[in-house]
């Protein structure tokens, strides 16, 4: 087993990883910016090293300082957490070249999956259904013909992109021809690569993902799906499992396809295959080659500590007891609590009690710096079914007390109370329909 782990991240995910380190007897070393010097993960970790000033580019993205911290503090592995360097193949390579274990898939796997065109091609080669698309790169001269075959509306995506950045929708040929050059420039600016491709655009699909664990030798276990349809500008707000959008048949087919893809990739570690569900079918979207913010939803249903599984796989211990078929049980839901402003949290009481879990790095007196992701707490519930889960989540969010910093708590409660969410009849346009059309 890894004996000493460097955590190259901050906030609640750093706390999450430290917790598992404690249980596995792994020493935890957390790196941090000067802005996070007083934060909970810094206090919790066995050791903490300041790697730079507040801006992420100088600290959490400062690869030389992170690698030096790992080596000089005698760590044998690095966990990238979520965001920052989590899907950066060069970082994974640097970690490996420094003689350390990278907790995540191989750099080549990250490279392949980071290139959306190659990822799609791999899925297609395994007959995993993909959104109708151009299949490869398009430019001003080829886009119109490709779009004609695909059918409007289409979405222009950067091959090197992700997280919703640099995507543009075109509803007809005129829009397409106007948008392609802009999309290419944006892709170039954001990802230093102007390759773009087309996919058919579904107006309001469901977003469903399969959580997998794989040992790098072709053994893959599925922990079931998560429905992440509730999003604001491609940022997930609420995740739940099971998804109300899947028939049992579709779920089995989707899981089987996801497992086949990971087996083919000889994927190692925890990862997620994301699908769109629309018009009664599902379509491969992309692979998240890392652990995700919403992984505890699957932990609650499967009883498996996904971070522990990552560390075991990275240590070469394989899937262990999780190799047996996992049958997720019950219902689980997560609501992300985001700060709407930076500041000091003058009062904080997390929710608790039966069926409630709260992952957070907040406490009374904690700081929310303005430099990073706004996620400050993940409120999770487990329940026997969705109806029970909904009332429990409302209870838990009602209990959550955060003073000094405004949050999206009330907005989350409004979503839970909305008839379309309660009935389960919605797609990714839910947020816009609830909050933006009114204005």
């Amino acid at each position, binding site marked *: 087993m890894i004996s000493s782990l460097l955590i190259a991240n901050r906030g609640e995910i750093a706390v999450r990883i430290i917790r598992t380190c404690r249980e596995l007897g792994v020493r935890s070393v957390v790196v941090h910016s000067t802005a996070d*010097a007083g934060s909970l993960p810094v*206090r919790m970790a066995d050791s903490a090293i300041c790697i730079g*000033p507040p801006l992420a580019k100088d600290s959490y993205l400062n690869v*030389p300082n992170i*690698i*030096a*911290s790992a*080596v000089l503090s005698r760590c044998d592995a690095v966990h990238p957490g979520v965001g920052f360097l989590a899907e950066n193949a060069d970082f994974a390579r640097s970690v490996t070249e420094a003689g350390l274990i990278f907790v995540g898939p191989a750099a080549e796997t990250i490279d392949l999956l980071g290139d959306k065109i190659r990822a799609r091609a791999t899925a297609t080669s395994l007959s995993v259904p993909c959104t109708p698309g151009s299949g490869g790169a398009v430019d001003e001269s080829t886009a119109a013909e490709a779009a004609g075959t695909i059918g409007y509306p289409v979405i222009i995506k950067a091959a090197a992109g992700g997280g919703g950045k640099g995507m543009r929708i075109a509803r007809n040929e005129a829009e397409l021809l106007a948008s392609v050059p802009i999309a290419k420039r944006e892709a170039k600016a954001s990802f230093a690569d102007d390759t773009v491709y087309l996919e058919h655009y579904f107006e309001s699909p469901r977003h469903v993902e399969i959580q997998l664990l794989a040992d790098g030798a072709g053994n893959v276990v599925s922990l079931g799906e998560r429905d992440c349809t509730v999003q604001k500008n491609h940022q997930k707000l609420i995740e739940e499992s099971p998804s109300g959008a899947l028939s049992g048949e579709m779920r089995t087919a989707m899981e089987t396809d996801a497992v086949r893809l990971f087996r083919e990739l000889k994927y190692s570690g925890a990862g997620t295959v994301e699908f769109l569900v629309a018009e009664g079918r599902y379509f491969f979207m992309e692979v998240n080659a890392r652990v995700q913010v919403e992984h505890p939803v699957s932990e609650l249903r499967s009883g498996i500590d996904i971070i522990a599984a990552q560390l075991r796989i990275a240590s070469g211990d394989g899937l262990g007891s999780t190799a047996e078929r996992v049958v997720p049980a019950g219902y689980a839901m997560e609501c992300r609590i985001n700060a709407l402003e930076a500041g000091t949290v003058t009062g904080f009481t997390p929710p608790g009690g039966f069926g409630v879990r709260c992952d957070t790095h907040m406490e009374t007196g904690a700081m929310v710096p303005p430099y990073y992701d706004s996620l400050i707490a993940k409120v999770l519930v487990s329940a026997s079914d969705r109806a029970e889960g909904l009332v429990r989540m409302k209870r838990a969010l009602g209990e959550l007390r955060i003073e000094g910093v405004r949050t999206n708590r009330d907005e989350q409660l409004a979503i839970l109370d909305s008839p379309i969410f309660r009935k389960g009849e919605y797609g990714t346009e839910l947020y816009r329909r609830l909050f933006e059309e009114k204005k």
Partner: protein
Amino acid sequence: MELKDIEALIRIFEKGSLAEMRLREGDFALSLKKTSSRAPERQAETIAGTVAEPAPAVKAEAGEEIVTSPIVGTFYRAPAPDAPPFAQPGSVIRAGKPLCVLEAMKSMNQLDAEFDCEVLRVIAENGALVQFGTPLFEVRRV
């Protein structure tokens, strides 16, 4: 509410001892809040044995300055184990001349003085792991 009223309100708020203020009248809403004087309550108490203290632990006297580490690495006072240190208490180091070496990932990074200075004290221990911001030298401009 008119601008001059808001301005007046802000002055009132600023002069007073209030920490926060919110105002709404019809469609109008105003929220004022003072910077919290409550500093981060705790200090990282978890620095491992050989890791030097981060910057805030050392305060320079007036006229004196603290040279801190710009990277994470190992602090060496000399270019080689058998060589004399670049800087000792009393040494005067000219701008652009080396103060010490910071080793990280097998590369030796020379840390040069940014201005002519006299070294008053060597704060970090030879061979210690230094973080971003770890105080290395106490110096005085000359």
